[in-house]
């Protein structure tokens, strides 16, 4: 079966800094894939290259067999993306953002209106009908971002830190939607540095360290008998295991 996302040898260097060093990853169809790593490990860079937001120095990425760089129209139709910290059309309301994007995707006006209505109500954004996106809180921004990613019924979701700075209530809503998406046959890749969250949600996990894949596969295989957190610390060899106090406290 074709993988939902097939990453082969992706590499990116910024100046002297090798951000991503020939990463290979296979995200099987129907999987809920967690990508974990420290800050600066290369998760965002890898995902940006995989969905066509950043041109790689080398390597390929295929979404359901469609090459992201050779056949972007097909590949981008199949994927919904939630990048971290990017701007939106800030002077539109949530509903207007969804209408705008749906029409950009070539969807009919009618379908866009119905889906926007449903997304806004499920994500509890419909009471902010008059609020422009620029006035949204961080949690609301994540939710409207997720709505834009889901709008065109993609088969793969690529989410960069979807739970960062999201309150527990909103997080529960997002988790419910994501689980439903996978249950309906969709595939998800999400990056995070919260191990507990990945353990709770994902069935596959990839550990990225210093731009390389340190381990990847089904969750049970990667973590073995230990918790994911212990396994992660072991894999990336962080010095932080020997806790050091602060001298003035």
């Amino acid at each position: 079966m074709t993988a939902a996302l097939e990453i082969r040898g992706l590499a990116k260097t910024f100046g002297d800094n090798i951000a991503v060093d020939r990463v290979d990853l296979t995200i099987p169809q129907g999987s809920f894939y967690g990508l974990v790593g420290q800050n600066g490990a290369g998760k965002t860079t890898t995902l940006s290259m995989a969905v066509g937001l950043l041109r790689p120095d080398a390597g390929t990425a295929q979404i359901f067999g469609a090459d992201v760089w050779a056949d972007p129209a097909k590949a981008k139709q199949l994927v919904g993306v939630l990048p971290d910290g990017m701007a939106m059309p800030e002077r539109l309301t949530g509903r207007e953002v969804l209408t705008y994007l749906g029409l950009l995707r070539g969807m009919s006006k009618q379908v866009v209106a119905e889906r926007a209505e449903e997304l806004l109500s499920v994500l509890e954004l419909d009471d902010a009908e008059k609020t422009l996106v620029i006035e949204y809180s961080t949690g609301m921004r994540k939710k409207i971002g997720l709505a834009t990613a889901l709008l065109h019924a993609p088969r793969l979701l690529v989410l960069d830190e979807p739970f960062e700075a999201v309150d527990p209530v909103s997080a529960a809503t997002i988790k419910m939607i994501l689980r439903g998406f996978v249950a309906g046959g969709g595939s998800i890749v999400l990056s995070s540095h919260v191990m507990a969250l990945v353990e709770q949600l994902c069935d596959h996990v990839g550990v990225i360290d210093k731009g390389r894949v340190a381990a990847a596969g089904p969750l049970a295989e990667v973590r073995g008998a230990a918790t994911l957190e212990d396994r992660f610390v072991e894999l990336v060899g962080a010095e932080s295991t020997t806790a050091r106090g602060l001298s003035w406290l």
Partner: protein
Amino acid sequence: MAVAATMVQMKIAILRHSIRGPRGSMMASAGSLGVLLAAGTIYLAFLEGDWLAVALAAWMLGWIVGPIFSGGDETLRPEYFSLLGLGPGRLATGLLAAAFAGLAPVISLLALAALVVAGARDGVVAALVAVPAMVLQVAVFVLLSKVTVAALGIALGSRLGAIGTGVLNGFILALLGQSWVIAVAFGQGGQIPEFVRYLPSGWGLLAVQGDYLALAAMAVLIVLLLAAWAALLTRRAGANRRSARGRRPMRAGTARQAVMAKELRTWTRDLVRNHQITFALAYGVFFAATPLLLGIPAMLPLAGPIFIAMSAAMTANSYGVDGTAHWLTLMTPGASDVRGRQLAWLVAVGPLAVLVTVAFTLAAGGPWPLVLAAMCALLGGGAGMVPLVSVYGLIPGIDPRNRGGNPLRTTEDEGSITGMAYLMLLLVALTAAPAVVAAVLFGWWGVPIGIVTGVLWYWGLGLLAERRLAAQGPELLQLMRTGRPPEGGTSAWKMPKMSKTHEVIVMLCWSFGAIPLIPQGILAAVFVSNGQLRHSWFLATYMPPGLRWPTAILMMLIGLAAMGTGAWLYMRAKQREKEPELPPVYD
């Protein structure tokens, strides 16, 4: 004082980094230009009359008006210190101290050395008085600038404020552009109006001339401005606004209409764009109307064309101002983002342009063919040039939600944005050239030519922009995210790698090579051949008969040599950059 010293150190550290960065060459050329202007000011101190007072007034105006275009120097923002619990007075004093550490204050101080020269002509005491006068005068300049920016920032918090500020700024800059009218109207030629000496910019000079009260007045003004600034800073840090008005539903049905709807909503809701368009309108109207003071209505028909060109210049960085929202365009290939933006630009600028053009040309009673031809060509040219310049010369903007207390400031790179505005004025003016020439030569035939060229500009330049966007979309996004062009990527403004010294030489050769070549060479030769002698500052026309032609030719050669040297250094560096063959980029 410790706060001030720390802030100065921070500012110097940031400046040190930016000198090494890509902005270094920009700062070097701005610096050299500033030094030239300062030298000119000092020269005026040797002359009789009030010329120095006029020059100082110009410096003050520069300090006040400069930030309107650039958004002001915000290297250190008050928000950075909001958690430190500093009182407003200490914060303002610290930021003021930091504001002195920079290129512009140093150059202004250099220009104010003119006060010492003026003093030395009166004696030792006057020269000594000039030293504190210089320092106080720079403080007045810097503080006036700071208070202006802070007040603007607060005014721009509301739509009414944004529009009001746009009108005011347009008015001030139009008067500057038409300062000859003002000069003639006030002085009827040659006479410098008395009030110039009594502007705050002239107080230092008054002190040097023996009016010591002016020193005290400057000190009082500084205290008042500092207090005003401190008060404005506290307002800004607490600024938070929310809108809850009803929104008109989006009726778009296609991708292009959706882009248009998004853009038009941004035009009406984004205060930055409100300001841009009112500024352009006010500039056009006041620029064209100012000569009425002298009873000259002939410039009235220019209002519309100037409004169009100025609108294009103000919106030249349209993709940059939107920031990283560009990722959505990347994720939806095939949707016609450029065309939608072009249409929205036309809808925002077009009707106003037609209205102003028709009304003002009616008032002046013509010349209709010329004005209509120019208007049609400029509308197409503007709608074509804006996306094209915006994607080729993209200047990374600050994402709208991070703009901070000064909404006018849409980018960290204020030098480039100003340069881009000037370039845009020139480019858009060029798009009207064929239609204007046709209208001058053939009258009404100019109008269809204006329409045809306008449509061609709109279509062709938009196509080029669309292609660039499709080919370099990810690189543009990376530029917006990081503020740096990706390595190996092609940025239209990027200088090839060369040493700092070479870079400065290239910039100087290119910027100053044109002076000997064009006015002192070619134009002077024209005047000499026409027998127009002793013509303003054209050197060759003042020479004895046998030396006129040689002088003009020598000037041309100097200009060509300078520009040639610049081009040669540039080409050599470009060549060297190509030599190490890069591995093919995956595409």
